[in-house]
């Protein structure tokens, strides 16, 4: 006979205001199997939990029902308390008489009756609860980091410094991401190369970090602690081990006029190239679309001039399987492009700005490349069209961001700051140049951010015009920007030499495909969704996968780095134990009853059901039955609902428990 303890909580007066807790406790005491039923003002408080533990030992309770808030709130708290008192945590259930009862029904009579029903239902359920021993799975103490920008680099270094092996996968030929493209960084104007290159070198030289560049994630299988990730290492056509990085091949390559994506296509590169001088690894890559050797079979100069003979045109993509226990996703962002959008894409381009066809209308990143000392113009700010120095630049804010009709309604957070920085860089390099900034409002909330923004106005003479730009068009060699100045209430027309657009921050191209491979969720803009917006910002709902940086939402470098270290800390906690404890809510097969129709295997989205052979002592095969791998099973229970004879059972949600609840109503 089970001895059930029922503990009804007042929750201050959240419950007792509309539910007569005394009557509920009294009613519970009359239910068969209930050994004791009391009520207390704050069950989740320390005295409340001590009351619970004392009752378990004194009354020799076998099951506990706590009638209080939603199990999503304190189930873990009470199960820990019950475990503290020596009872298996899964013999404790919560009756939700707050969110589902006291808060939503004013009539005291109705609310109390409903609370009694809910408690009665949960009492019947707990009678059928079985002891569920914790399930532990081995943890592979290696972490995968996807994305080699500052977020990926920081996370990889933190995890590796903690002594765990890291596999860092980067899609571009070199790590560094968008930060490497920046010139100086706000709010301190220190140059991004100086603060980032040492970290990049640390990554390359770190004994614990395996670096795959020019590589992508092909397939992700397995679960927390036991992922098998297939990495596609795309053919660089250069042997990484033998290449010394001398760069002779790049100087001799006849193909000189290929727009360099790293320089936002205003700088040029050769067919065999390294994206930027401080690239890590410093091994060049052959761009097979534009290399004459691959297009027509002629040339091959790079191979001829290569001393160590590292150039290898026959190199093929290789697939490498890495076993890892945790995954940090740090795939970063891309800037919104104002060019015409393909049909059907919800995001519309900017016809009023010429769909990006006017050469001197550039985005923020291109301005960074112009201003960067290692950029194509060696730091001189010049017009991409004719190379002349612009005397008047118009900066336009919120291009795509905060523009619902353009398909993006969020604020991209970093543009106000980097535009202020751009006006400063421009003023330092072109003393008689005049910067105008069309903006709605300046969002500069960070530490010493607003002071930085004020400086661009007060000391660097940038003219801020509060208003939006309706149109701009090319007139001769000038760009006529037609906007409005709502502070003064007039139409404004500026003939500018160059226009810089602060375009919106978006997730990387293909972010949704990677999410589908990882099985993590993402929002309508393809930003990855965190488990809880406030309390678990660097974890995914899918266990074992963590997020860092702009792939989760627009953010600046300080926030990105802190998220990267936070994600690394989460990985380290995961690796701190040899075996990983898992919720024992997993399915088990009653092999005696299973007839091997494998309907369960067909509906299991996790591939947790395997085929198991039953053999007699002589080894001849008697029959094949289903068997569930407790590590892989996520506990959804679809298999049990599909199995005609209910031979597969989900612990914690067995048919007995559910039918007991239905029959109690």
């Amino acid at each position: 006979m089970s001895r059930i303890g029922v503990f009804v909580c007042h929750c201050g007066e959240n419950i007792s205001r509309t539910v007569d807790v005394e009557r509920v406790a009294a009613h519970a005491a009359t239910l068969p199997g209930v050994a004791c039923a009391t009520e207390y003002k704050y069950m989740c408080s320390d005295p409340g939990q001590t009351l619970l533990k004392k009752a378990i030992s004194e009354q020799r309770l076998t099951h506990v029902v706590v009638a209080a808030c939603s199990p999503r709130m304190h189930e873990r708290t009470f199960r820990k308390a019950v475990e503290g008192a020596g009872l298996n945590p899964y013999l404790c259930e919560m009756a939700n008489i707050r969110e589902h009862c006291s808060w939503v029904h004013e009539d005291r009579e109705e609310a109390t009756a409903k609370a009694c029903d809910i408690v009665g239902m949960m009492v019947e359920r707990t009678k059928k609860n079985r002891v569920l021993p914790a399930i532990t799975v081995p943890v592979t103490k290696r972490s995968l980091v996807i994305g080699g920008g500052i977020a990926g680099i920081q996370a990889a270094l933190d995890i590796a410094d903690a002594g765990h092996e890291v596999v860092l996968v980067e899609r571009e030929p070199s790590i560094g991401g968008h930060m490497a493209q920046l010139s100086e960084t706000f709010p301190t104007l220190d140059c991004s190369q100086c603060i980032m290159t040492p970290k990049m070198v640390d990554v390359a030289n770190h004994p614990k970090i395996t670096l795959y560049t020019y590589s992508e994630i092909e397939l992700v299988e397995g679960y927390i602690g036991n992922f098998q990730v297939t990495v596609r290492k795309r053919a660089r056509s250069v042997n990484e081990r033998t290449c010394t990085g001398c760069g002779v091949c790049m100087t001799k390559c006849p193909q000189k006029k290929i727009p360099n994506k790293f320089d936002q296509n205003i700088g040029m590169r050769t067919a065999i190239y390294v994206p930027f001088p401080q690239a890590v690894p410093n091994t060049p890559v052959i761009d097979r679309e534009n290399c004459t050797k691959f297009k027509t079979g002629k040339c091959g100069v790079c191979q001829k001039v290569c001393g160590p003979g590292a150039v290898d045109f026959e190199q093929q993509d290789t697939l490498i399987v890495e076993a890892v226990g945790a995954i940090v996703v740090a795939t970063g962002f891309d800037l919104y492009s104002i060019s015409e959008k393909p049909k059907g894409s919800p995001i519309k381009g900017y016809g009023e700005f010429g769909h990006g066809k006017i050469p001197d209308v550039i985005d923020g990143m291109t301005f960074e490349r112009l201003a960067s000392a290692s950029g194509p113009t060696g730091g001189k700010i010049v017009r991409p069209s004719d190379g002349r120095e612009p005397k008047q630049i118009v900066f336009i804010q919120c291009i795509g961001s905060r523009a619902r009709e353009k398909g993006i309604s969020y604020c991209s957070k970093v543009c106000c700051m980097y535009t202020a920085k751009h006006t400063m860089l421009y003023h330092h390099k072109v003393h008689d140049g005049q910067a105008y900034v069309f903006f709605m409002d300046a969002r500069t909330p960070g530490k010493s951010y607003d002071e930085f923004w004020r400086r661009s106005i007060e000391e660097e003479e940038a003219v801020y015009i509060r208003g939006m730009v309706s149109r701009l068009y090319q007139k001769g060699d000038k760009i006529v920007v037609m906007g409005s100045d709502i502070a003064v209430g007039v139409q404004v027309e500026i003939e500018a030499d160059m226009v810089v657009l602060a375009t919106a921050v978006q997730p990387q191209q293909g972010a949704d495909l990677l999410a589908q491979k990882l099985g993590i969720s993402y929002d309508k803009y393809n930003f990855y969704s965190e488990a809880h917006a406030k309390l678990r910002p660097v974890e995914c709902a899918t266990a074992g996968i963590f997020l860092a940086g702009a792939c989760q939402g627009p953010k600046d470098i300080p926030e990105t780095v802190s998220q990267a270290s936070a994600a690394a800390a989460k990985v380290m906690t995961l690796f701190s134990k040899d075996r990983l404890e898992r919720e024992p809510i997993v399915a088990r097969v009653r092999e005696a009853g299973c007839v091997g129709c494998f309907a369960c295997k067909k509906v299991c989205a996790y591939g947790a059901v395997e085929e198991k052979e039953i053999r007699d002592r002589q080894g001849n095969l008697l029959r094949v039955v289903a068997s569930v791998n407790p590590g892989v099973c996520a506990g959804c229970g679809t298999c049990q609902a599909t199995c005609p004879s209910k031979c597969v059972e989900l612990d914690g949600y067995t048919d007995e428990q559910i039918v007991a609840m239905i029959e109690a109503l």
Partner: protein
Amino acid sequence: MTSEKTLTYAYYPGCSLHASAGEYDLSTRELFKALEIGLTEVPDWFCCGATPAHNVDELLSLSLCAKNLELAEAVEGDLAVACASCFSRLKFTQHTLVENATKRTQVEKALDAPLKLDGKVKHLLDILARDLGLERLAAAVKKPLTGLKVACYYGCLLTRPTDVPNLDCVEAPTIMEQVIEAVGAETVAWTHRLECCGANFTLSRPGVVIQLTNAILEAAKAAGADCIMVGCPLCHGNLDIRQKEIEGVYSTSYNLPVFYLTQLVGVAVGLESAKLGLEAMIVNPLPLLKSKGLL
């Protein structure tokens, strides 16, 4: 789609086509006859109220257009509209009354008759480019306008506001270029295709019109256009009638003939000048057409 079937439309000319823009009405009728497209004028249609009505009293403007839409229902075929302003008002009324139930009941009370509002309203450009189709239009060409460089001028009403006329992309339309290129002309890329010409300020504040229209003429000339093509009698009025005066004010010379789209297409289809009302234009277009061997 009404592919091979002969197209037929109800026709709402609008007041200016029976007055100052008579040549737009004449060239439309002649062109549709030449292209074997049926056109029957809506019996006792009346003014759509244009800009003045909806500035004075919205219910008046909505009721005028709603009544015209009801009258058009009686005539077979979608409603063809030539003037950009009438097109904008009719479309705006249909859009507002479908979206807004309270305004709809007010208008129905004013007209004391229920409204259907499901008839399609189409600008001539829509009919030529999509219903008839560019291939059949090109096939009907007898004198291709080769060598004629045309600046297509949409004005501010044809594509705005978003999601109401739905004629073409709001910021970067191409339907006019498609139509005129289908009949052999060359079009120029210029900056003021969608800029306002000042419209009916031409009566109350002519100074504004002179300034705005000059910017348009200047941009067209700079782009190397021979002439400007419009789809609205009011824009035609400003660009054509005031061109001489603007040339005086800015002491420059444009000499840019301003055609209605139906006139230019009419020339390409081989209609003679009398059927297109080309003589009624202030800036004489005949020397230009002769120089291109089109007349």
